[in-house]
Each structure stands twice: as C-alpha cells, then as structure tokens.
C-alpha cells in the first residue's frame, strides 16, 4: 500500500504536475509537517529539564525567583521572604500547574535572575552572545567548506597522495580532543612564539572599544572594527580569534571530513554514477550533480550530533582561551551553583540543537526529494 502510494507520487512527479521538482508544493507540505513536530519536541525537552529541576527542594527553587541577593537579611526575614516567594509563584502547587507556570514565564521572557552575575539570565545571554557567535562563524564556515572539498577530494583520489594527506590530518584532528589541542596550540603559538594571544582583545584595544568614540554595532569586534574603519583593531581582534577558532574548527572538520570521504566513496560505486559516466557526461557534471548531491546527505543528517558536540566544544574552548562568551559564562556559573543560569543555558542550547536539526531536515528534503514523499 505504502509502496503503491510512493509509486503514484513518483509518477506524478514524472508527468510534470510539479513545475519545479526542487521547490514544489511537496516541500512546503513537508516543512509544515516538520514544524508541527517542533512544539512536541520542545515540550518533551522542556519536560525533561523541568523534571530534573523539580528534584530540588522547594526552598532552593524559591531562591531562584528572588530578585537579588540580600546579604544583610536576618534568618527569620529570609525565611519569610522565601515562604512569600513560594506562595507568590505557586512553587508548592501540583506538578502540572507548576509546569504550566514555568512555561508561561519562559514565553514572556522571565528566565530568572542570576545571583552570581546580578543580572537577568536573558540579559546575560544577550550580552555574551556576540563573542560566541563571532567565534562560531569564524570557525565553522571554513571548517564545513573545507570538510566538503577535502573529503570529496580524498575520496576521488582514494589511496593517492591527497587521500593520505587528508586522512592522516583528519585522523590526527579526530584523535586530539579540543582541550588538549587548545593547550598545545596555546603553548606553542602563545607562550613560545607570542603570535596569537588568548582572550578577545589586547588591553589597549579593550580601552578603545569601551571609549566614547567607538560605536558598538554588533558586539562582534571584528565586524565593529570594520564598521568603525579601524584596521588596527580589526587585526588585533582577528589575532585573538585565531587559536580558539582553529581549535574549534579542527575537531568539527575532522569529523565532517571523515564522513564526507566515506560517503563519496560509497556514492562513487553506485550504478547511476557509472551510467552518468557511460552517457559521456563531463567529469565535472558527474561529480557536482550526481556524486556530491547524494554524498552530502549523510553530512546533513549529522547536524544534530555535530550541534551537540559543538556546544560541548565551545564551552571548553571559551574556558581555555578566556573568551567572555556564553560557554564560559555558563561554566563559571556552575561553579557558583547558579540554577537559573544552568537552566537558561540548557534551554538556550536545546533550542539551538532543535533549530539545527529542523534546518537539517529541511535541507535534506531540498537536496533529496524522496524524503518528501513519506
């Protein structure tokens, strides 16, 4: 039955009922279907989180809602305040009521107040997002592009010289965990040669950025420096980005390259590639249209794994290189047992992975029209 349905749909595709096979009505339907799953997924993720948080005793959870730390409060007054908070926010209510309250708070942007940083969690996230975003773009864009190019190159010259070079590099990159790679890079390129320092800017540049005549547009120093047309500052920012960027890029690159290589190898052996060659298509067309288009699919389905790995790595790298981004902010809050920040960070990163996997699913359907049929 299922097969019959598929065949009929295939036949429809063939008869030209769909004008554009890549962006036809099927795709929009598919995207809508995926979007419908999204709330279910987010609901489940938040329930997991809430179930974990609920294990805290009610007094502890009440402290999360206190607007600020009041150190010179007497114990009785503190007790009263906590009881008041429990009552006000319904922290002793039944589970479902509490859960609904919590979700509503999340929606209206009440993510709690961090006692460690004395600011709201959302404000903390917003303040540190540019640093993390800058590092991510700087590392991920070249890493993904290079992974696709080199992985494919390596597969097409299987057991040739390019293959050995790429495979060895990828193996080494995969073997060295980011914190050890970061440590070694810091040792050689900062301590020994002094070329690429940690942190985000040199001291003089920090003063410059905070001064009156510097306009902050995005919070990403490289972009802001260009917008302020200050090339000295731009190079300083880039110099500080190199080590963390390379560390982050290498790990992700190694994983993606290995997958891309074995995927291209698999596709090259398929009959349709032989057919394409037999038809006398130019090699460039065979590779770009027939091989790459199919070989990229496993890479896309790796997105959610890569996103989870990316979050681990960005925390580690920001801590090692002392970058004031979201990752280091979260890691330092954990040492203070800051519940709102921990929950806020978890929510933030879950949203990120869910969004990433949604985008990956849509991309998958764009590249591979078969997916839309189910």
């Amino acid at each position, binding site marked *: 039955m299922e097969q019959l349905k598929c065949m009929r749909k295939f036949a429809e595709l063939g008869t030209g009922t769909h004008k554009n096979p890549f962006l036809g009505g099927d795709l929009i339907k598919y995207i809508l279907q995926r979007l419908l799953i999204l709330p*279910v*997924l987010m609901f*489940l*993720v938040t*329930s*997991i*989180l809430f179930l*974990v*948080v609920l*294990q*805290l*005793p009610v007094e*502890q959870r009440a402290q999360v809602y206190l607007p600020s730390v009041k150190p010179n409060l007497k114990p009785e007054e503190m007790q009263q305040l906590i009881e008041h908070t429990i009552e006000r926010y319904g922290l002793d209510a039944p589970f479902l009521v509490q859960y609904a309250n919590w979700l509503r708070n999340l929606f209206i942007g009440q993510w709690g107040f961090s006692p460690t940083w004395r600011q709201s969690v959302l404000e903390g996230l917003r303040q540190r997002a540019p640093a993390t975003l800058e590092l991510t773009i700087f590392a991920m864009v070249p890493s993904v592009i290079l992974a696709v190019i080199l992985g494919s190159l390596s597969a097409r010259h*299987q*057991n040739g010289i390019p293959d050995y070079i790429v495979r060895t590099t990828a193996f080494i990159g*995969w*073997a*060295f*965990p*980011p*914190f*050890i790679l970061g*440590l*070694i890079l*810091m*040792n*050689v390129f*900062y*301590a*020994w040669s002094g070329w690429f320092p940690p942190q985000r800017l040199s001291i003089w540049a920090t003063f410059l950025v905070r001064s009156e005549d510097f306009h902050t547009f995005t919070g990403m120093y490289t972009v802001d420096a260009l917008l302020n047309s200050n090339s000295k500052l731009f190079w300083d920012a880039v110099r500080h980005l190199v080590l963390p960027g390379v560390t982050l890029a290498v790990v992700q690159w190694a994983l993606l390259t290995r997958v891309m290589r*074995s995927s291209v*190898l*698999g596709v090259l052996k398929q009959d349709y590639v032989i057919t394409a060659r037999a038809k006398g298509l130019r090699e460039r067309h065979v590779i770009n249209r027939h091989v790459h288009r199919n070989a990229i699919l496993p890479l896309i389905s790796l997105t*959610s794994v890569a*996103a*989870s790995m990316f*979050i*681990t790595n960005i*925390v*580690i790298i920001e*801590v*090692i290189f002392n970058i004031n981004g979201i990752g280091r902010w*979260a*890691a330092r*809050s*954990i*040492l203070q*047992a*800051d*519940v709102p920040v*921990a*929950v806020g*960070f*978890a929510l933030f*990163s*879950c949203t*990120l*992975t*869910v969004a990433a*996997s949604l985008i990956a699913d849509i991309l998958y359907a764009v590249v591979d029209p078969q997916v839309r049929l189910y």
Partner: protein
Amino acid sequence: MPKLTLIKRKLSKAELVAGSLLVLVFVAIAIAAPLISPPQTESPYQLPKDGWSLLPQPPGPDHPLGTLAGQYDVFYGLIWGTRLAFKIGLSIALGRAFIGVLLGLLSGYYGKLVDAVIMRITDAFMAFPVMAAAMVMLTLFIRMQGLLLGSSERIIILTLILFGWMQYARLIRGNVLAERSKEYMQATLSVGVPARRILFRHLLPNVTQGLFVLIASDIGAMVVLVAAFNFIGLVGNPGGHPLADWGQMLSLSRDWIIGTPVNAFEYWYTYLPPSLVIVLFSTSWNLIGDGLRDILDPHF
C-alpha cells in the same frame, strides 16, 4: 574492484590489530599498577604527595616523570589513572548500552504506540546537549547536597549515561525491525513463546550488529569527555586531594602551560605526559571502532 576491497580489508585489520594491541597494553598497565608503582597511601587512587612546594619539579631519580604543583608524582598518576580511565569508560559505555538496548528492543518489538512514544522521547533526549545536561545536573547536586564539587565525578558518569543512550536505542531498534520479518520470528510467535523469552533469548543475540562499534568508540570518547570536564574545573577533587585521574592531573597543570618567559616549554612534564596518554587511549579505542566498522560494514 575485488582487489581494492582486499586492500581495504587488510588496512582495517591493521587498524584493528594496532588498536587492540594498544588497549592490551593499557589493560596490562591497569592490572599491574600495584607492581609498577606501589601505592604509598591507604587509598591508592589518590595522588601521593611528596613535599609542599608549589613549584613543579623536573624528572629525577625519585620521580621518573617529575611532579605537579604541590609535589604530586606524575608517573604514579599516569599508571593508576589507567585504572580510573577504564572504570569511567566502561561504566559509561556499558550503562548507555544497557538502557539503549532495552529501550531499542521494546520499541522495535512492540511497535505502534510503544515505538512512537519511545522514539519521541529519544528525539527529545537527542536534542539535549550533553554539556547542558551535565551543567544542570552538577548545579542541582551541589545545591542539594551542599558539596563543593567534591566526588562529582560520579554525577558526571550518571549524567553521561542518562543523556547518552539514544544512539544505542536507535541502532537496536533498527536491527530489531529488520529481524522481525524473518521466518524464525514468525515461528516463535506462532508457537506462542512468551514475549520476554522472545526478546532476550531470540532477538537479543541477533540484533547486536554495530553495537560493539558504538561501545568501543564510546569508551575512548567518554574518557576524553570526563577529562575535559575535569580540565575546565567542572569536576573537582573530593576533600581537595586530587585523584590519580588524567583529567585532574591536567587541570593541576593548567597554570603551567605558559612556562617561564625564558623557556615556554619549561614545565612540559606537567601537561605533556597526561595529554599524550589521553590521546593514545582514545586513539586506540577509535582504531578498534573504525576497524570493526570497516570489517562489519558490507558497503565498502
């Protein structure tokens, strides 16, 4: 074509052999730890302290690989750390495999609603990055027990199991689905074998394809991840006394990676040996995982 696959076979075998040999060396070290470096205190998993100087000491007759800040012996830590690494890696990988296999079996065998529910839960856990989960769990445990990051390695292990079984469940579910349509399954069903017996006697032995690849690569990866948690200071040492754990040794040497202004590599013995051992350990498991995958995968 057949020649190529032959080369590939040989290569992957070489990978497998190299990885297994390395792991065997580590196993030997772990078993022979009391002989190689006899424990000097009552609890052998704590690093022995030889003096109070905060400056790391270079390798000498007493300490073959020098000491960390606080005079903790590096060599002793490497040897006994092997035992801890196996404990961490094996407990996490096997714990994950246990949960994953169980859920995968149930989901694949019963299908329909059970399958749908289990798979949605799996998706939700997949969307939960391990780092975020670890942070939430650590904060909660510190809050609840008032401990200052002491003995939190156990919490990390628990978290990594609870938030890491999804790949196993998906793999086993897929295998069960493929197996369910086979004749022997029809036969067991038709003679009325009870579900529990079908699940564990008939299905379980037949759905383990790929399971050991996952376990092997997870063991190495988890040791690295726990070491990373140690390194950035999320996991601490109970009572301020560091364990003979590679990650904790690295976190002790964190302040010394810059060296001195004269010589950047002055304190190499504090961070290089633990790093190398961690890399070797994870590489050996990666080699085993890759080798197994290549041999078992019929595509290449």
